[in-house]
């Protein structure tokens, strides 16, 4: 233990900042910052579209959406890259993160499934009862 004890409040702030922004953390988190910023932009519109709630639940919702974007964006960018090798993941992560944050997924999935059922009805012919 040869580290100087932190005595003043400024030293404490420096200590906390050194923890958050240390080069080890930055090298891991840094590449994800594009995704985080894109997802926050998209999620902001989603929070605005959402019904008014308490501030705490709005912040938690926002963090949920951004976290989901961080998890899913890289996977989707790699899948897209495997189909279209000319689109490198470096280019596509930002738009994908914005879209994941922006789109209201339950609503969109409902629309897609409804469209699929409509297409099925169209292919099967008219009438619901056999």
């Amino acid at each position, binding site marked *: 233990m040869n580290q100087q004890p932190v005595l003043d409040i400024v030293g404490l702030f420096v200590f906390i*900042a050194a923890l958050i*922004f240390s080069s080890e953390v930055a090298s891991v988190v840094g590449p994800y910052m594009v995704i985080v910023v894109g997802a926050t932009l998209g999620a902001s519109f989603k929070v605005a579209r959402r019904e008014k709630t308490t*501030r705490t639940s709005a912040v938690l919702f926002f963090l949920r959406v951004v976290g989901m974007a961080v998890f899913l964006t890289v996977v989707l960018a790699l899948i897209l890259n495997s189909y279209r090798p000319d689109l490198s993941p470096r280019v596509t992560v930002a738009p994908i993160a914005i879209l994941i944050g922006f789109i209201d997924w339950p609503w969109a999935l409902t629309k897609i499934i409804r469209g699929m059922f409509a297409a099925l009805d169209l292919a099967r012919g008219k009438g619901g009862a056999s």
Partner: protein
Amino acid sequence: MNELYLYAFANLAICGVIGFIALCRLNAMRHGVLWRVRIEYASYVGGAVAAAFQPMWGEWPRMGSLAIAGAMLIGLFCSGRAWAGDVPPDVATGPAPLGEQ
């Protein structure tokens, strides 16, 4: 380096408050709030996050960054009266449809 860390921490704190206020106003928005107002506060949130974590990609904030972040925070505080009670001001909403008047 300590000075850089101190600037970074102050910048993180200011941008955190900016992001929180902007997020609260986005939460307060209801149907009918103008798109330009939504874009304004969405860009505040995105910009605050990007500015707060800029040391992650090696750009350290200095006095200039703190000055503009502080100015934005003062601006948000000054417009706090208009958003009192988490209700969007009239200038932020479009005209109501004729049927609802």
